C-alpha cells in the first residue's frame, strides 16, 4: 500500500495499537530542558521507578539561563534552583547533561541537529512545542507536556492518536529578500493559527528542496504556529551531508544501514493526504506581524487589514490591535522600533547571523534601538567568530550575547519593557510573550537587521546590495 513519509515513520514506531484509543509510540530520542522536566522527574521518584533508557535522553539548560556572564552563578534563585534540579536529575539517572558553559550547550532544538541527535526517520520529542524543528530531517518530532515527559523517561513511549496528514506544496522561485521565515509566516497568515490543528504537515515542492537545512529547520519549527502537531520534509542528499560525521549520528556499518533506510523516506507517488494545499513561491513578500498571534502577518509593504476582512471575531481582532496600539489600515513600513531580537530556535543559527550581518555591514545600529543578538548555541557562537561575522557586528555597534532562549520567552532577564516594540526573529508574538506588556513584531533576520540600523520597520530590499540580492 502506498504511504506518506509521515505514515512510514509513524507506523514503524507503533508498539501497540489500542482499539478506539491512541497508538503507543516508541520514541527514539528525547530532549529535556530545565523548565518542563522537574515535575516529570519528581513523578518518577514518587512512583519509585528509574529512567528506562537514559542513553536515549539528552539534557540541556536553555529556557531559563542568563545570556550574559554565564560563568558566574545564576542570580535569580528560582532559575538557579531549576537548573540545579536538572543537573541533579540528569546525574542521578545517567542522562548526558550539557549545562551552562558546556561546549555543546545551547537551545534544545539547535543542539539536537548540531550533534547528530536528530536523524532522518527517528521519533523525537521534547517538552517544548517547537520540537517540530527536527522534522526538517525527515523525523517525526513534536512537543509534549510534562506528563508525557514522565512517560518517555519511564517507558520510552507516549500514547498519541495518529494525526491526519496534510501536505503543503510550494513551487516557483522566491523573490528577493524572502527567507524561509517569510515562507513560514506567509503560510501561517493564510492558514491561521488553527488551520492545521489535528494534522501533521509535510512540506513539499521546489521552494523547500532548494532551502538549506537551516532554512528547512526554520520552516518546520513554525509548523506548530498553525496548530499542526508537527511538520516534516523528506530527507535528501543535503540532509545526509549535514548529518554525516556528527557525534551521535550513526557511523561505519551503522551509517550504511541507516542510509539504506533513510533513502526510503519519501511519500509514495500515489500516497493520499487528508488535505493538500498549494501556494506559489512568487507570491511571497518579506513578512511582518502586526498583531498578537503569528497568523496576524502581512507582506511588509502592506497595511494592517481591516477588521471586517478578518475571518475571526471582530472583537478579538480589535483587542489585539489595541494591545499593539496599532490601527486598522495603517502602513507597517516606518513604524517605531525600540528593540531588535535576533535569536531563538527559529532563527538563531549561523545562517541567520550571516543574513543579519549582510545588512548591517558598513552601517551603524540606530541609536533608538536596543539590540539583543543571541546565538542558538556555543557552536553557532564559535562559527560567528570564525567567519568574521562578530567583527562586522561589532563595527556596526552590536554586541553578541551568550546562547539561550532569551527574549523568545523572556524567562530570564531579557524582557522587552511594557509598551515597547520589538522586531523579533522568534516565533510568538502573544501578549506578554517577550515580557509583560511587550509588543512583538515577528520577522526574518533580514527585516530585523533593517530595523536595527534604521530604527523603524524598513523593507530590507532597500538595503540589500543589488549583487547580493
Amino acid at each position, binding site marked *: 500500500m502506498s504511504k506518506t513519509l509521515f505514515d512510514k515513520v509513524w507506523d514503524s514506531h507503533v508498539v501497540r495499537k489500542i482499539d478506539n*484509543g491512541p497508538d503507543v509510540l516508541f520514541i527514539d530520542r528525547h530532549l529535556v530542558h530545565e523548565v518542563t522536566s522537574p*515535575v516529570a522527574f519528581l513523578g518518577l521518584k514518587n512512583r519509585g521507578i528509574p529512567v528506562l533508557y537514559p542513553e536515549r535522553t539528552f539534557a540541556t539548560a536553555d529556557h531559563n539561563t542568563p545570556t550574559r556572564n554565564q560563568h558566574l552563578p545564576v542570580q535569580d534563585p528560582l532559575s538557579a534552583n531549576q537548573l540545579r534540579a536538572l543537573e541533579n536529575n540528569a546525574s542521578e539517572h545517567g542522562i548526558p547533561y550539557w549545562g551552562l558553559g558546556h561546549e555543546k550547550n545551547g537551545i534544545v532544538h539547535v543542539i539536537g541537529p548540531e550533534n547528530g541527535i536528530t536523524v532522518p526517520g527517528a521519533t523525537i520529542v521534547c517538552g517544548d512545542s517547537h520540537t517540530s524543528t527536527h522534522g526538517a530531517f525527515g523525523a517525526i518530532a513534536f512537543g509534549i507536556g510534562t*506528563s508525557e515527559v514522565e512517560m518517555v523517561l519511564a517507558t520510552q513511549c507516549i500514547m498519541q492518536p495518529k494525526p491526519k496528514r496534510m501536505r503543503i506544496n510550494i513551487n516557483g522561485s522566491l523573490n528577493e529578500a524572502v527567507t524561509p521565515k517569510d515562507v513560514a509566516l506567509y503560510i501561517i497568515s493564510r492558514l491561521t493559527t488553527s488551520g492545521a490543528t489535528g494534522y501533521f504537515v509535510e512540506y513539499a515542492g521546489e521552494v523547500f528542496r532548494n532551502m538549506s537545512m537551516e532554512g528547512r529547520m526554520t520552516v518546520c519549527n513554525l509548523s506548530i504556529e498553525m496548530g499542526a*502537531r508537527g511538520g516534516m520534509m523528506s530527507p535528501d542528499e543535503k540532509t545526509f551531508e549535514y548529518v554525516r560525521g556528527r557525534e551521535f549520528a550513526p557511523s561505519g556499518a551503522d551509517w550504511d544501514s541507516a542510509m539504506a533506510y533513510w533513502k526510503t523516506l519519501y511519500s509514495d507517488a500515489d500516497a493520499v493526504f487528508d488535505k493538500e494545499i498549494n501556494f506559489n513561491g512568487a507570491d511571497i513578500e518579506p513578512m511582518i506581524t502586526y498583531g498578537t498571534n503569528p497568523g496576524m502577518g502581512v507582506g511588509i509593504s502592506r497595511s494592517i487589514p481591516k477588521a471586517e476582512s478578518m475571518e*475571526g471575531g471582530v472583537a478579538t481582532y480589535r483587542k489585539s490591535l489595541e494591545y499593539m496600539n496599532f490601527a486598522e489600515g495603517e502602513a507597517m513600513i516606518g513604524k517605531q522600533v525600540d528593540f531588535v531580537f535576533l535569536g531563538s530556535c527559529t532563527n538563531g543559527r549561523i545562517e541567520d547571523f550571516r543574513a543579519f550581518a549582510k545588512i548591517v555591514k558598513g552601517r551603524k545600529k540606530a541609536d533608538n534601538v536596543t539590540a539583543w543578538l543571541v546565538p542558538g548555541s556555543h557552536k553557532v557562537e564559535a562559527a560567528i567568530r570564525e567567519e568574521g561575522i562578530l567583527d562586522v557586528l561589532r563595527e556596526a555597534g552590536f554586541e553578541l550575547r551568550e546562547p539561550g532562549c532569551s527574549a523568545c520567552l523572556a524567562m530570564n532577564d531579557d524582557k522587552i519593557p511594557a509598551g515597547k516594540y520589538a522586531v523579533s526573529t522568534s516565533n510568538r508574538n502573544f*501578549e506578554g510573550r517577550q515580557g509583560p506588556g511587550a509588543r512583538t513584531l515577528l520577522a526574518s533576520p533580514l527585516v530585523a537587521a533593517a530595523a536595527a540600523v534604521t530604527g523603524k520597520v524598513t523593507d530590507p530590499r532597500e538595503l540589500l546590495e543589488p549583487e547580493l540580492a
Partner: protein
Amino acid sequence: MAYDKFTVLKSTAVPLPIENVDTDQIIPARFLKATERKGFGDNLFRDWRYNPDNSPKEHFVLNNPIYQGKILVGGKNFGSGSSREHAAWAVYDYGFRCVVSSFFADIFRNNCLNVGVLPVQVSAAFLQRIFEAIEKDPGAELEVNLPEQTITLLPTGDKESFDINGYKKQNMLNGFDDIDYLLNMKEEIKSFAGDTPL
C-alpha cells in the same frame, strides 16, 4: 499524577468569550520556574487578572464574584501556543474540571486529558447559546455527562454530544493516567526497543 475521577459534573460556568486564548495568557512563562506542581492556580491568567502592582483588575471575569463554578467556557481555538502542561495544571489547580470551547489547540487538549481536566468541544452555535445564557443569568448551570458524552445547558434544556476517544474516557472515569498503562506493557516495549537502533 493521579487526579479525581470524572463522571457527571453539574456546575455554573465562568465565561471567557475571547478567541485564540494562548498558553502565555493562561500561565505566563515567568511562573514556570517551579520544580514542583504547586500554586499554579494563583497565577492562572495572571496578566489579565492582576495589575503590575498585584491589585486585581476589576473587569476580568475571574475577579467578578458573580461568576463561579468548575467549568470554564472559552472562545474558539482555546489553548494555542506552547506545550507547557503548566497551563492545564493552572486550570485544574484553580478549580476548573472542564473547559468548553468550539475548538481546542491540540497539545493543550492532550495536556488537559492527562491532568484530569475534561475538554468539551461544542458547535459554535451551542457555544454562543452558553455565552448568552450566562450573560442573562450568571447562575445558569451546565451539566457535563462523561459516560453519556453529553453537555446540557440546563436553563434551556439544549443538549449536545461531544467526542472523546474511548481510551481517554476510561482514564477520566477512573482517574488513571497513561503511565500506569505503559508500565504494564514494559516487556513488550523492551522487546520492541531491542529491534530499534539508537
